[in-house]
């Protein structure tokens, strides 16, 4: 591992990687600072830009957008009580109160330092974890892979926004979309409905940009808060964060980092949950919990370190098994595939120095981030007041140009608009599109490994799994247990909600 790390370090020592990572960080911060513009949207529309760069430049560029975006979301959360991204919702519990007290600069500094410490620690953990998991992943055969993919899809469908069955339907729909084109085993044409353009299947890029970026634009078009955001003049006030204030929160930062790292390893959980859990744990552990909600720096440290600590571990299943755990890693998977790299155990063996170089790029991105973030906070604080009306058409143009350039096929634009409208309607009807994207990406892997398993089993699937591949059997049973647990949780939640409504009606 040390040998691969040193080789990776020598690969990484190039100026263009650092320049593009820094550019990605600044772009991410700008997008995160704009309420209504998400990090995922920025990554989706800038994904095609990374295709035409060297992997060691393009992927760190996207990682920079991701890291910058998660922190950038805290800027409007602190200054104007509008979270720039979902991950910064918990930051609004303390940030605006600190701004009211005239301590917005302290709050922004704390958010930056807590983010970088959380992120850096999680990246170190990820690097250490990568080698043993990759070694284990090498032992994974088709039956185990099929079971792991099934398990991931169930967890992703259960942990994303919305009702479980709706998540599962979207996931299954994604799998169906992945079947359009050719089957991965025999190359037979299927579900093309007479369209020549569909013979090679639905390309990932228009789907990703369509469901992640265009609905954001369509929602923002009808968003009545636009004028309010545009009219706000945010000013940074107060003194900078003192070292003793940072050290006072160190215990909280490391606790939240641990929470973030743990939750980051669970597919689909993500930053939002981590931030809430980190904040709640800090409040519970505090000697003065009554100060939480009134402008407590510790609350910002807790939420920001937790949500950023998710960043590293989410890459573990992607790089070791080729399974993206959330929408951000799904976009990163798109970047890897376009660069001719198929994440998975083989890639960790064949291209280990490159993989370690990419992981080290994450560490360097954090170091760069603390410098750039510290210097540019006042500038990004002004970004929150940029009117959306001017940015929406630019975002749309980038989305269209990005979808077109990969194949230079006008049909991709048709698919882009189709998936954009589909994503918008799905969102309005409370369907989450993340399981759809995961189903689309993991569908071919599931189908291929399932097909190979059927062939290997030679007609007696149950005996084959139970007697010869018990690990696959265990993961399959775990999938069923996970589904039942999620269902039970949903049932209890619904029952509680109905009981509350009944009590309310009786009270009326």
């Amino acid at each position, binding site marked *: 591992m040390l040998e691969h790390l040193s080789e990776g370090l020598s690969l990484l020592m190039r100026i263009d990687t650092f320049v593009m990572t820094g550019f990605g960080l600044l772009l991410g911060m700008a997008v995160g600072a704009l309420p209504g513009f998400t990090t995922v949207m920025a990554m989706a529309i800038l994904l095609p830009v990374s295709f035409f760069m060297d992997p060691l430049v393009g992927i760190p560029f996207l990682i920079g957008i991701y890291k910058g975006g998660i922190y950038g979301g805290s800027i409007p959360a602190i200054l104007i009580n509008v979270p720039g991204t979902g991950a910064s919702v918990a930051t609004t519990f303390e940030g605006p109160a600190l701004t009211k007290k005239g301590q917005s600069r302290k709050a922004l500094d704390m958010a930056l330092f807590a983010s970088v410490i959380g992120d850096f620690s999680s990246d170190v953990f990820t690097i250490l974890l990568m080698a043993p998991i990759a070694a284990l992943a090498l032992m994974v055969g088709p039956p185990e892979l099929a079971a792991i993919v099934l398990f991931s899809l169930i967890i992703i469908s259960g942990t994303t926004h919305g009702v479980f069955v709706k998540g599962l339907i979207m996931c299954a729909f994604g799998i169906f979309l992945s079947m359009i084109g050719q089957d991965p085993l025999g190359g037979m*044409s299927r579900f093309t409905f007479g369209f020549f353009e569909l013979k090679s299947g639905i390309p990932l890029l228009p789907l990703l940009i369509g469901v992640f970026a265009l609905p954001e634009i369509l929602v923002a078009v009808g968003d009545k808060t636009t004028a309010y955001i545009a009219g706000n003049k945010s000013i940074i006030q107060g003194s900078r964060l003192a070292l003793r204030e940072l050290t006072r929160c160190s215990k909280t930062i490391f606790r939240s980092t641990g929470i973030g790292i743990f939750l980051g390893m669970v597919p689909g959980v993500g930053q939002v949950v981590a931030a809430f859990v980190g904040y709640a744990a800090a409040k519970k552990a505090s000697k003065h919990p009554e100060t939480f909600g009134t402008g407590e720096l510790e609350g910002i440290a807790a939420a920001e370190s937790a949500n950023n600590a998710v960043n590293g571990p989410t890459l573990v299943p992607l790089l070791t098994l080729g399974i993206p755990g959330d929408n951000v890693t799904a976009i990163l998977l798109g970047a890897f595939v376009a660069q001719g790299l198929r994440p998975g155990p083989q890639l960790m063996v064949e291209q280990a120095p490159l993989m370690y170089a990419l992981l080290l790029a994450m560490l360097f991105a954090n170091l760069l981030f603390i410098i750039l973030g510290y210097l540019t906070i006042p500038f990004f604080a002004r970004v929150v007041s940029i009117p959306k009306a001017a940015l929406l*058409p630019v975002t749309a143009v980038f989305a269209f140009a990005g979808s077109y350039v990969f194949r230079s096929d006008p049909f991709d634009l048709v698919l882009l608009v189709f998936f954009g409208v589909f994503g918008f309607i799905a969102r309005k009807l409370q369907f989450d599109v993340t399981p759809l994207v995961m189903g689309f990406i993991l569908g071919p892997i599931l189908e291929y490994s399932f097909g190979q398993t059927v062939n290997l089993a030679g007609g007696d699937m149950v005996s084959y799994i139970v007697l010869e591949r018990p690990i696959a059997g265990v993961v399959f049973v775990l999938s069923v247990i996970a589904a039942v647990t999620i269902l039970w949780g949903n049932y209890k939640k619904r029952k509680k909600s109905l009981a509350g409504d009944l009590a309310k009606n009786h009270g009326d």
Partner: protein
Amino acid sequence: MSDSVRTSAEADTGKKNWNFNTTIALIFIVFWGGVYFIIPYQIAKPKLFLGRSLMGLEPTLFPTISVILIICLSFWYLFVSKTIQEVNELIRMDKEQIVKTVVTIAAFCAYTQMFDSLGFIFSTILFACPLTIYFGTRNPITIALVSIVCPVLIYLIFSTLMHVYLP
């Protein structure tokens, strides 16, 4: 996960046994039922060698399993739909929001048509300029920046820096 689940007072559950989720579940059952029946016509048949397929696995097997799974999930969705309390944000959109959304989608469609035939820069000017004004920007400098400078910059980034073709 609970963000979308509202109390019944907020939700569109005026008709206790029927809500938008029930309607969607029924549409899904009909749609995926239809897809199930067209599977044999939408999947090419494998070539036979001495009367037997050379493929170990029938090409229809995985699609059939998937579609049956979606149909089962749709029935489950129908079954639980009456207890789901969610807001149908689509029908809650007011007239202004509907008009803005429809106009934007129409602009997307028009841009899709113009993109290849008129070329990137010209089609983008025709797309971005009216849209920027429609979204409420009145400052001519901002309009020019968005609709002229931006497309030229994007074109230069892709074609000159990355050597990628844009029409």
